[in-house]
Each structure stands twice: as C-alpha cells, then as structure tokens.
C-alpha cells in the first residue's frame, strides 16, 4: 500500500492523516513526561555492596571468611565445659572448663591480626587473616580469605619435658584457605582446606604435616539469630591415631556490638592445631562439650 501511494484514493489519504496525527497526539505527552528515573536505572551502576556472609569471625571453633573492619578491636571469650556424658559426678561436664581469651584487630577492612591464650596445652596463638576476594552481586561469586597462624605450647614445663625437647618444638603452624559463598540472605556455605605443621609430634600425635578439609555453613533464622555448623575431615591421619574428626554446631545470637554463640562440639580445643588434629571426643558417643563464644566489638579508630 505504501509503495503505490500515488494510486491512493483521497479517502485513504485522509485516513492516513488522521491516524498519523492521532499517533502524534498520543506520543507527545509521553515525551513531555520524560522517564528520567527509567533512564537513570538503566545507566546507574548496580550496587557493589558486599554482604555479610557470616555473623562473626568464628563458625564454631574455626574461622569464617569475615574480617572485622578497619580500626575495630574484637574481644573474644571462648569457653568449653567438659563432656556432657560425664554424668552427675562431673555435673554433666560443668565441673570442667577450657578457656580461650583472644583479641583481634582490623588493620584494614581486609587485614586482621589476632592473639590469644588457650588453657588447653597452655597455648599462645597468633594469626593474620587477609580477605583476598569479596563476593559481589555482579562480581566475584565467592569470598576467599587466607589465614596464617602460629601456636606456642607452654606446656609441658621445661623440667618436665622429654629429653632433647627444645623450645622450638613447642611451635606449630597453620595455613588455611577459607572459601565461602552466600547463596541467599539465609544460607552461606564455607570450605576450609587446612595445612598444619607441628615441629614436634609425640608418639600418638601422627605426622608432622597434616592436612584436612573443612566444610561448614550457617542458616539464618531471623535477623538476629542463626544456626552454624562445621566439620573437619582429616585427610592423612595415622591408622593408629586415637583422634577423631571434629564436628560442631552453634546457635548465634547477635545484639548491638556482640555476637553470642552457644556451641556443641566434640573437642576441647579452640585453636586449629588442637581442634583439627587433636580432637579426642566421639560426638555420637556423647563426648560432647557445651560451650560458648562471646565477642564484644570496640571501635578504636573512626574511618
């Protein structure tokens, strides 16, 4: 029809004109309306907000990918009672107590440094944690942090030590990669490949170099309450090793500057060396320790 308009009858021309002007009339208000917001939303960058994958720096016993932020000091008090299957005589474990007192400071948003003292083996520990990669809505799908730590056992006393035991034998080292993904606001999962080197191992303590793979996660129930769990599988334990893989469950409650965790776990340890390679409890035989981690945050430096 358009290709041979010269053959159009006058009526058709009129109709075309009317339709065109009708189209124009309806088109004009649309243009003067001018959808500024629509255009803005098309061009504006998507949010780069990197979300909170876990509530705190600890899943149960071990670390999460979280670092605490520049200028922030975190005081962490961890406590494990004895085994719940200790019976009434042990008041179901409440008679025993294992404690770790620790401090962590955020040098930058990505780099943290921590120290602690654990009553198990009378150990001192120190570590550095660095966030290598942060999960973003339109960027990296994972958050990855690297943890490097050293533990110094002050037990046994020098006079009680076996012959030839030197102070350097008290040291052990941990290298860990923490790899996590927040799948939804409620669900985050984490993998923790771990390497532990002990300068000295006793006859039952296995190899000097031990590797393990950890898995864990958290499920957020409400804005302030979540469940967490963690399991470390030892890849190269000795066949005669008396130790077991560690398993733990936690309930996390967050208020203001605190995270309060109630945990159930088969280990007394609160340092990687102890809970990954020297856990002696059988969770399913009732060798369960009730415990808690309490953190308090202090902002030392304003941004």
């Amino acid at each position, binding site marked *: 029809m358009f290709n041979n308009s010269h053959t159009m009858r006058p009526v058709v021309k009129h109709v075309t004109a009317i339709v065109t002007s009708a189209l124009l009339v309806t088109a004009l208000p649309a*243009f003067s*309306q001018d959808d*500024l*917001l629509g255009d*803005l*939303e098309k061009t504006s960058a998507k949010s780069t907000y990197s979300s909170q994958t876990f509530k705190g720096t600890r899943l149960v016993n071990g670390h999460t990918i979280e670092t605490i932020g520049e*200028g922030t000091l975190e005081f962490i008090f961890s406590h494990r009672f004895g085994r719940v299957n200790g019976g009434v005589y042990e008041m179901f474990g409440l008679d025993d107590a294992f404690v770790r007192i620790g401090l962590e400071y955020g040098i930058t948003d990505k780099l943290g440094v921590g120290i602690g003292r654990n009553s198990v083996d009378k150990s001192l520990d120190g570590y550095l944690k660095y966030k290598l990669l942060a999960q973003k809505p339109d960027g990296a799908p994972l958050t990855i942090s690297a943890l490097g730590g050293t533990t110094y056992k002050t037990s046994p006393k020098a006079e009680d030590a076996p012959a030839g035991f030197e102070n350097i034998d008290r040291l052990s080292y941990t290298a860990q990669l923490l790899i996590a993904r927040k799948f939804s606001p409620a669900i985050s999962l984490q993998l923790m490949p771990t390497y532990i080197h002990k300068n000295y191992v006793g006859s039952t303590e296995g190899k000097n170099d031990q590797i393990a793979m950890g898995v864990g996660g958290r499920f957020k129930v409400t804005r302030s309450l979540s469940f967490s769990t963690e399991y470390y599988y030892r890849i190269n334990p000795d066949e005669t090793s008396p130790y077991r893989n560690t398993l733990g469950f936690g309930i996390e409650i967050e208020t203001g500057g605190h995270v309060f965790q109630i945990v159930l776990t088969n280990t007394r340890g609160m340092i990687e060396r102890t809970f990954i390679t020297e856990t002696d409890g059988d969770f399913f035989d009732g060798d369960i320790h009730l415990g808690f981690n309490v953190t308090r945050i202090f902002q030392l430096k304003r941004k």
Partner: protein
Amino acid sequence: MIRISAIMLLVLVTAGAKAQRYTSEKSHVTFFSKAALEDITADNKKANSLMNPSTGDIAFVVPVGEFKFEQALMEEHFNEKYLETEKFPRATFQGKMTGFDAAATQAQKITAKGKLTIHGVTKEVEIPGTIEKKGEKYAAQSEFMVKLEDYKIVIPQLLWQKVAEEVKVTVNFTYVQQ
C-alpha cells in the same frame, strides 16, 4: 509527505526533550540520626540524578550499599538489618519541581513533589529544596526527614535507643547538560 513530516516531527520532539536534560556530575547524599547514645551519620557519593529544567522533572537513584559509616559494624547492621540492601539495593525519587524558573540566575526555593522509594516502599512526598544556576551548571540541594516506620524499616527492640525514629536526609547534586 505526511509520513515524512510526521517522522521529522517525532525526531525533533525526541531530540528536544533529550537536549534539555541535565545529568549529575557530582553528588553527595547523607543521613543523620540523633540518638541517645551516639549520633549516627553516613555519606554516599555514588548517587545519580537527571533533571529537565524545561519541564521541572527530576529523578535520582541512591545505591543504598554505598553509604559509608564511621564504624564497620554500623554499616553492616544498616545493610543487613535495617535497609535489607540485598533485597532493595536502591532508593529512588521521581517527581516534578514547582516554583522553579529555569532562567532565574539566583538561588530559588522549590518543592519537588513525587514518589520516594526506600526499602521497597513507595510514598508520595513533597521535598523542599533550593536550586541555583551557576553558569552552565545547576546546583541543587535538599534536606528532608524520613520516618523509618513509613518505609517499613524496623528497628530491633534491643537497639531501640540506637536509632531515632526519624532520620534527616540531605541531598546535593551538581548538574551539567547531558
């Protein structure tokens, strides 16, 4: 003939509307909350705005996750607990300015009437502000109160005293022709 002139007209109208637009080259959005324990402030320099002086249309988009706080923990709570940034990454406004004269060279008080969306909730609002033509540019600023309850922003009871029920928001844009 009719078709050609119609198309030309359409092109002209479209071009005319686009040419009148101004886009933000600089932005600064803040909020301030007066509270018993400590005042809370945050800054955001990643907002974008478009403005059309000939029609008075104005719109802006604020990426909520870009608010910077003095304390990392506050930033976390703001995003995780109050604004639910993952679900609602943007706050937006679209409206029309009244009392605005595109030709005036002095600062003028205006009112922008339109829809403000925060935390996924849209409200009809009237925002007071000033706008001034500075050479080729426009500088606009506004200060208004946002009642958290209106936008279904819930404050956990344990923290009730940490955040005021109303927060003061300031918006600053400098516009250049697009």
